[in-house]
């Protein structure tokens, strides 16, 4: 599922990243790459998605978070 469709409290793992070169570089350099585990902290309508990944709380723009495919882990 898309990262933007996950709920607060869910844990997941990034399965695929889509988007142009620029986006891929940007998202990788800030710590999100394929295979990395994360937890959704908050996901409200019309707000960026808050995730906790690699010891960091990240805010991801909503549109960008639709380009991230993730699997739920440990559900």
């Amino acid at each position, binding site marked *: 599922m898309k990262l933007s469709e996950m709920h607060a409290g869910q844990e997941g793992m990034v399965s695929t*990243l*889509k*988007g*142009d*070169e*620029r*986006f*891929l*570089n*940007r*998202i*990788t*350099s*800030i*710590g999100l*790459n*394929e*295979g*990395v*585990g994360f*937890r959704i*902290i*908050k996901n*409200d*309508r*019309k*707000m*960026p998605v*808050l995730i*906790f*990944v*690699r*010891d*960091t*709380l*990240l*805010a*991801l*723009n*909503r*549109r*960008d978070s639709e380009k991230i495919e993730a699997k739920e882990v440990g559900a």
Partner: protein
Amino acid sequence: MNTIALLGQPNSGKSTIFNQLTGARQHVGNWPGKTVEKRDGTFTYDNTKYTLVDLPGSYGLSGNSDEEVITEEFIKGGRADLICVLVDSSQLERSMYMLADFASMDVPAILILNMMDVAKGQGKEINAALLSERLGIPVLPFTAAEGKGYGELKSLMEEEMKNPHKLKTSPDIPDDASGTEMSGGKTLNEGKAKYAWISTLLDGVTNTAQTEYKISKLDSFLFRPVLGKVVTVGIILVGFLMAMLIMSPFMGVAGMLPGLLGGPIADFLTKIKVHPWLVSVFSLIIPNTLFFCISMASFVFGVNIVFGFLEEIGFLARAAYQFDSALSKLGLQGKAIAPILMGMGCTIGGASGTRVMDSWGQKMLTMMVVWAVPCASIWSIIPVISGMFFPIGGTLLLCVGIIAYIFVLMFIVSKVFGRSLVSEDARTGMIMELPPYHKPHWKYIIKEAWLKCFDMFKRALTTVTLVSVIFWAFSYSPSGNVESSLLYKVGTAIEPVTKFFGMGWQTFMAFISAAFAKEAVLGTLNAVFAGQSNVADVAFNANASGVDATALSQVMTQTISGAEALAFIFACTFSVPCLMALSTTYKESHSLKWTVKTAGFYIGAALILSCIVYHIALLFIG
């Protein structure tokens, strides 16, 4: 040549180290042929002079923006003798990515583990010696904002200049051939390899496994969609009150200058028989300019202290999260909220606050949007003028209208300029870390605010003096009557044109003075309507000239219509914010073309607005 360059992701504390090492010995310009800001400076250690270059902020070295290309070329071209790579110790794994990107380049380097205080607070321990052994370069644990340990850093730099080390390991980047068929596969594989390299390096270097995240009480408040926005704006408003408290003592002292200096200077110059013109220049313009510049600089100081504090503790990152979706509609992203909110206090502060933006285009667009926000200064004038013409209900209605128009204007600006400044595919949304709340480093905040305020003061002193002299020349009247001044002659000559926009010659002159300084509006109105003092005397001397609001109100309400007053208020509010905002915009954008474009757009838009407001108002209030 002794050149050292700083490399690190935004938020790694790069500019803190840069400012602490170079102090005021900085030079800010452009990278040749680019709109990217180039910051370099010097410092001396052990009788040797070093040049320090602050490489443009980027997240990696993949060449996806002007900033990244410049940084990459600079390092590859061997233009630095030593590269200081900065990482955030509290998020070591993630921020080491920059080092992984850098590792393929064959240049001497040191690694600075910044923000050790935050890492320690989280119970993290880092074995710097082991990391250094694995990397083959020195690793220095550091807390840049604390202001300590710089001696150690400098001595390490000196040592490495004589006896340089290069990284002995780099990520095992797979060959392109083995890449996947899908687009971007190369980038993704490289990313994987880099993180694998980082994991191997950090194995046994850090003590903690992934920390559990627990949302703090404050955050569970601030992250709510509606309440969070209300609280954010509320905190900012309280912040402005604090800023005013900080500035008031400086203003008070500066306010006494014209009175204290004016008389003695005039007496002295008259005594030595200087021409009366010059006496007036020196005794009026100079003390008033000084007062004006000090009060402006002290406000910039106050605003920067408050926002520096909010940034340091991590609050502004939360504000960015709150407003990201709204700002994406303008082609901007969440980070732009801080300069926009700063603009509610002072446009100068807002314009210089756009430094946080990721690219030049976003920065320029943010500055243009910041201009649309009326500053505290004009808000203090609107009720005074409105109150002369309209009852309290009308004034409130006007304020609502002005607030509504702010959003309209922001939207227009983003429609007109958005596309050329931030192209559709460059519209990166916010991908930003929200740092944990931490204690502010006051010494650092005050020092940064002081640097900005001092820089503003220096620029203001020359610009404002020059403009004061021009004002003075225009309004000089041999007979002491406003009608024999150049101002009157020019003003009345172009009145047929300005009338079309809804303003007579008096209000039009005040409209022009508003583009220089909002504080000048009441003084100019007083001079052109009541003819009590000349414009130069009052233009940059808002309160000390003692405008008699009641007397001014009488003359103004007799001379001009309510419709003209309304048009005038709108025109002043949404014109060029002030001379120093213009100068700061130029300084921050390094683009004369865009600064002129911005000013031209705002003057044009203000006149059109004035015209529309005037003609609509005529239908209702006559």
